[in-house]
């Protein structure tokens, strides 16, 4: 079975499409995790049933290693599934998705190891596991209990596949740079490294050395203000985008070492306040629409 990176993604998409998920394209903004996509954050805060799946490129500035570490990057892909309410056969659905990308459940050791998830910036928490494939964390499996400070009613199931990790296990490789991207040979052959090595080098330099601290601080403040104004205008969707931008500015500031331990907690609390306001307003509007 073809296990190259892009086929793996296509297989996941078609598998989850068959389960009734809306297949979305990546959100066009920088995020630290697929959870930040409004299709997860806002949609898990309201009470209306929802099923979606999408690839989301993620940026974690502090995890950059200038392309020198085969397993750590500042930019990578997550495949995200969100199903609300969480289905009865959640684990079976997930395991079948592994089969669908060519993962042999009988030849590998797949385990559900306790890992309670928390996102202080989103005011979110859930219970679940990290899923291990031969000791490697290939997915996060979470039942959301809280989002934006609100109790999740109903509970959403969130599956997050670390696509590079998963591909490493699937392709039996030890370095992400060697991952087969397109399944071609000869001149057409492309690896993950061909696609992203240079990006890792340059973006790490930007993240750690050149990101402009004063303008990031300003940007954070600007986004925070905009978010507040848009909430006042009863526009949670654009407001939430400014919350996402504020969060990313914070991540960059963090990578630049511009945030002390105390400031850190204060910044996180500010983003959380934005996320809460967005989720609360979104939920109210969804309820009102439903009632109308």
């Amino acid at each position, binding site marked *: 079975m073809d296990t190259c990176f892009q086929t793996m993604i296509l297989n996941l998409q078609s598998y989850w499409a068959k389960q009734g998920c809306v297949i979305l394209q990546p959100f066009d903004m920088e995020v630290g995790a697929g959870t930040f996509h409004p299709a997860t954050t806002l949609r898990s805060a309201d009470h209306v049933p929802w099923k979606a799946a999408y690839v989301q490129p993620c940026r974690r500035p502090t995890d950059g290693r200038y392309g020198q*570490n085969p397993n750590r990057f500042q930019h990578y892909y997550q495949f995200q599934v969100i199903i609300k*309410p969480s289905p009865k056969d959640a684990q079976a659905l997930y395991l079948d998705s592994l089969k669908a990308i060519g993962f042999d459940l009988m*030849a590998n*050791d797949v385990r*559900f190891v306790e890992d309670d998830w928390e996102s202080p910036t989103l005011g979110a928490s859930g219970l679940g596991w990290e899923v291990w494939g031969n000791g490697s964390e290939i997915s996060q499996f979470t*039942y959301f209990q809280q989002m934006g400070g609100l109790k999740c009613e109903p*509970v959403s199931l969130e599956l997050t596949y670390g696509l590079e990790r998963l591909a490493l296990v699937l392709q039996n490789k030890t370095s992400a740079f060697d991952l087969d991207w397109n399944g071609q040979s000869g001149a057409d052959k492309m690896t993950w490294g061909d696609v992203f090595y240079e990006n890792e080098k340059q973006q790490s330099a930007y993240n750690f050395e050149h990101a402009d601290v004063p303008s990031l601080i300003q940007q954070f403040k600007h986004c925070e203000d905009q978010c507040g104004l848009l909430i006042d205008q009863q526009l949670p969707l654009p407001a939430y985008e400014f919350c996402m931008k504020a969060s990313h500015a914070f991540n960059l500031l963090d990578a630049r070492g511009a945030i*002390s331990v*105390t400031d850190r907690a204060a910044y996180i609390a500010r983003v959380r306040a934005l996320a809460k306001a967005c989720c609360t307003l979104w939920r109210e509007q969804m309820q009102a629409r439903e009632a109308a």
Partner: protein
Amino acid sequence: MSEFILEIFSEEIPARMQKAACQALQDHFAQGLADHNLQFEHIKSVVTPRRLALCVQGLPVAQADTETERKGPAVDAPQQAIDGFLASVQLGLDQLEQRDLGKKGVFYFAKLQQKGLPTSEILAQLTTRFLQSYRWPKSMRWGNEEFTWVRPMHSLVALFAGEVLPVPAPHSFVSVGRTSYGHRFMAPEPFVVESWDQYQHALRDRYVVLDPAERTEMIADGYAKVAAEKGLALKESAQAHAAQVAGLVEWPVICTGQFDAAFLEIPAEVLTTSMWSHQFFTPLYTAEDILSNTFVFTANMAPTDGMAEIVAGNEAVLQARLQDAQFFWQTDLEASIEGWNDSLKNQTFHAKLGSVHERLTRFEKLAACIDVSSEPLKLACRYAKADLASEMVGEFPELQGVMGGYYLQAKGFDAAVCTAVSQQYSDQDQTDMVAVQMAVIERLETLSSFFAVGIQPTSSKDPFALRRAALGIIRLAVAHNLKLDFAALAKANYGALDVADKVDYAAYSADLNRFMVDRLRYFLKENYDYDVIESVLGSQWFVEGMDFARAAEACAVLTEDLRKAEGQALLQAFDRINGIFGSGVEGTVLDEALLQKPAEKNLLKQMMTAEIQVLSLMQEGKLAEALAALQPVLQPLENFFEEVLVNDPDLAVASSRRALLHRLRTLMLRFVNFSALVKK
């Protein structure tokens, strides 16, 4: 006699929560059955990652029938009262018995037959109550319902005497019946549960070992076998590892892996932390107790074509982790310790207490109080926290201190300095005096600084682990017989703390002392009786000096002494003297010339001798000897009480006699507060 079987089948239960839940399940049923007067022969609960199960054998099918008697009104009571009684017991007048109660009169009595409830009904109730009431450390909701459990529950097997019990499903996703399932991958098909015996065997055939003790043993034995084959050894902790890993698998399969020997240049603590804390791998050691590059771990699968792929995958994960660790190690070795220390100025220790760097200044002040001449202690204090700025500690926070020791060693610092930094957080493994002193300073600075800005533990919250810090100081002082001047150290740290809003010194000092005494009381309670502890903690010398080591020793000496007749005699003597002063009037003037009777002269003489001895022995810290030095006073005291009347008509004589006794009482109180001791 019949059998009850319960299986609660769910998604993976966190390993750390399994044992307590398993015990609680058994206790719940043992207690619940007893409360309902249901005897049983045998009860056992077991747990795996996916199921919590219980078996109760030798149960009757129903409670025994009971007969109770109810007293009614007197036979000559108004008709209304009699009718009311008949209605309440639902019997006719001819079914009642009349009984003469003598003076009280003749009364009606009703015999009530109570049919025993079917056991199945009680078991169903107990099952439901367990599902509703068991408190997991963390539990969750799923789907669209409010019921909570540790993870989503899928099915219940609840059988009594072969019949499915009428247990309502706690969640619409849960089915109740007689169906169970084997191993998640190797035997997922449903099977029918008939009896406990059959259930255990059926699961064994389906790759599930039910009993956690058996899985633990399989893992521990498996690890030992691998170690033996490789000529390597396991540490003691391997047994605890096996018990934890048993909570992660239903079908343990022992695997052996290796990592590149080149990584052995990294400190062993880094390697073992990577292996165990992150991957649940157990390291193997050479006969010389040196870490090897071979490790063991447990898989939950036995693929038909062998373990090679699983082992290779696990090795690759470790390899990636160690590569990162090696990078950190090498980067850190090139960094400057001074530079790290500098960057601690930007690391906040606590919003109210400034940076980590400011702590170091306080450390050095405390070091000067403890031993101003110790250069190693001074250096250890100066670089104690440097490693907090290292890459490695950023990645492995649990290795702080240990890494500092390695990095200082690499820079050529004295072994005593490295050891002290390395062992600063450890609870009781300090190997030399500098390390002990450093560990005390680390805790004392934390405790005192937080108290100085008004942050104290409450009954439910102690986020900065101040109780543990206090207990650590006490343990270190006692174990190493440290003569700590706690008050002076607490004062020095308060003085060195340069922050905006310090609490008033008197309040700080009073609160801190009270807290320490409380912790000491808690510490001593492990070994000594309450009254002994109170007598020591209430003594003058302790209140003044807060000498923890001496307090512990005094408890030991006193406990030992009170076991003997001598000790009890001393206690009795104190009580007798104390009785004299019950009214509160003390002798004021001791005029020796007025003490003329041989018995009182002798007591005075013996007491003065004892005074000199006791005081100097106390000063030398010879507590047992000091206590023994009081013994020669006892016989003269006895004679005194026999031959002398304290309250002499001559007031001056009486006053002198009282003063003599008061002086003896004071001397005894120099040792401990005898008033607090309870006579046996």
